[in-house]
């Protein structure tokens, strides 16, 4: 597993593969993930549809801690410093991957919009 955002000494990440969602091809996992997203109160911070509230939007194509499968897994498992709780202790690995499937299934802008007012 790579931890690029944690590796500063020497700038060389440890040799390892990237984490990839093992449920990416499981068509039901996104629907399961939507239920988990709500039942674990993710929507309380990230908003219904993950469009953002106190916490950032997860569907606007912009990522603070990386948008790869592995980065999302880490964000959910270990938490992030400004309030994202570490769900590693209460969510199974497959539940985390289902949430990631749900986020991936949301419609995303083709390009990240850069104009606020038109």
């Amino acid at each position, binding site marked *: 597993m790579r931890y690029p955002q944690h590796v500063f000494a020497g700038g060389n990440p440890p040799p390892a593969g990237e984490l990839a969602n093992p449920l990416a091809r499981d068509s039901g996992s996104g629907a399961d993930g939507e239920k988990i997203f709500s039942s674990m109160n993710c929507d309380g911070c990230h908003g*219904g549809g993950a469009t953002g509230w106190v916490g950032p939007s997860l569907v606007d194509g912009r990522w603070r801690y990386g948008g790869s499968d592995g980065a999302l897994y880490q964000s959910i498992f270990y938490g992030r410093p400004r309030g994202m709780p570490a769900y590693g202790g209460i969510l199974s690995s497959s539940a985390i991957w289902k949430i990631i499937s749900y986020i991936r299934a949301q419609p995303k802008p083709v390009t990240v919009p850069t104009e606020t007012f038109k």
Partner: protein
Amino acid sequence: MPGKDYSATRFSGLSQITPANASKLRPIWSFSTGVLGGHEGQPLVVGSTMYVVTPFPNVLYAFDLTREGYPLKWKYRPDVNPASVGIACCDAINRGAVYADGKIIYNLLDGHTVAVDARSGQEIWKTQIADISQGETTPMAPFVAGNRVIVGPSGGEFGIYGWVKGLDLATGKIVWTAHNMGPDTLMLVRPETFGGGAGLGTSTWTGDSWRRGGGPVWGWITYDPQLDLIYFGVGNPGPYNPEQRPGENKWTNSVLARRPRDGSLVWGYQFTPHDSWDYDSNAEMILADFVVGGRLRKVLVHFDKNGFAYTLDRATGEVLVAEPFAHVTWAKSINRSTGLPVVDTTKTTGASRGNVQGICPSLEGGKSPASPAAFSPRTGLFYTATNNLCMSYQAVPVTRIPGTPYIGAATPYTAGPGGNMGSFIAWDAARGRKVWEIKEKFPVWSGSVVTAGDVVFYGTLDGWFKAADARSGRQLWKFKVGSGVVGAPISFRGPDGKQYVAIYAGIGGDWFLLSGDVRSDDPADVRPPADFAPDLARHTSQGGIVWIFGL
């Protein structure tokens, strides 16, 4: 005191600035706090020093008002846990400090109260009062009555078990903890309280729902030294889905009167029983004495989120006046003899009731508790910001996971009738009627200060700081301060003998969530405009500026 005095009048006895000369007000000084975010609360001037607390990370600045440019005497940098930022429901704000016994006392967002030597900036004590792992954060301004520091938590959206605590002023030690619901022993109910109606903190709930029933204390506190009672509002019950907590849910959405020495509960009054709309009652309880119904009464006046302004007898809690100051649809009136609202049951919400439309006010409140009102004994009027918003409310079942949101409703807003989303009003609390009103395009979320020169000050979300004639509501002056105003102005006499007015600019609080793309320091956080106020972000972005104005 955060609210100027024990009564939280926010009345300044200074009279150099008048309706005749207010148009000559000009900026004297400004200072960037270095923090972007909701600058709620107010600066505190003690002698010739001005103290400013920033939002997270809760820096405390002490400015020397005797020297040119008001340089810093010192700066206090507390160690605050950044995890608290995500536990704060609605921006990492702070509502200010209190001065007592040579100490500046304020709360850090992460559940600590600190006392700092007002002269040297050295930390005197630091006490953990709240637990962020349970969803508690602490942005409110502490209050001091006698030798007790009174503090409470936020977390009505996190299923906390709400409380207030009394700390020893000298040491910071927690002397008492009083819960706002639950068994009488934990609520510190006196035997004679409620005339034998004991157990209300459990019997008005179902099962043990009170244990996660919210009831935060994030607003302002007042004190009547003669009656020896502190008054504070209790916030919403959790979750927002009321079907998970059948019962009146006492004492959420209530005012409680307690003894500051030992915290014991003397009386309580519930503004919104079995809340179905997130109508927290954390707004200030302003203390005043005036004639109501032909008799001089000792009253408290409270502008509730539910849209009614209440005038209560502050010795007993008797409802003397309760009239709407904003557009209200959830209730027809308040029955003064029972104290109960006459609820329009078509506006009652719940997971089984679908999406309930046309509820006014919205959960931002007819007035936000974050926007404290002012009272002038000269005019006899109260001055307050108001919101003119309505909402629909779709409740859903929700499970509590400690330290995560426990909300259970989606509540989009729409503008209320009249074309303006807010206003600033003068209110006659003896008769329960509006005396004048200045309509504003956007909701008004600032506090106010009124002076002996009969000038009242407030700010707007689109970044104007304004002065109006306290008697007529005539607008006298305005200045664009660089970011939306959600703080409360103060007026003070400088070491040079002149009258000044200070205000924070820095949009945030709920408006961090609602104003769209006002955050420009984070490339990963670009927010779409709010449906009901799509162009607010054309007028403001985040900021953090302290302004001082003078003649």
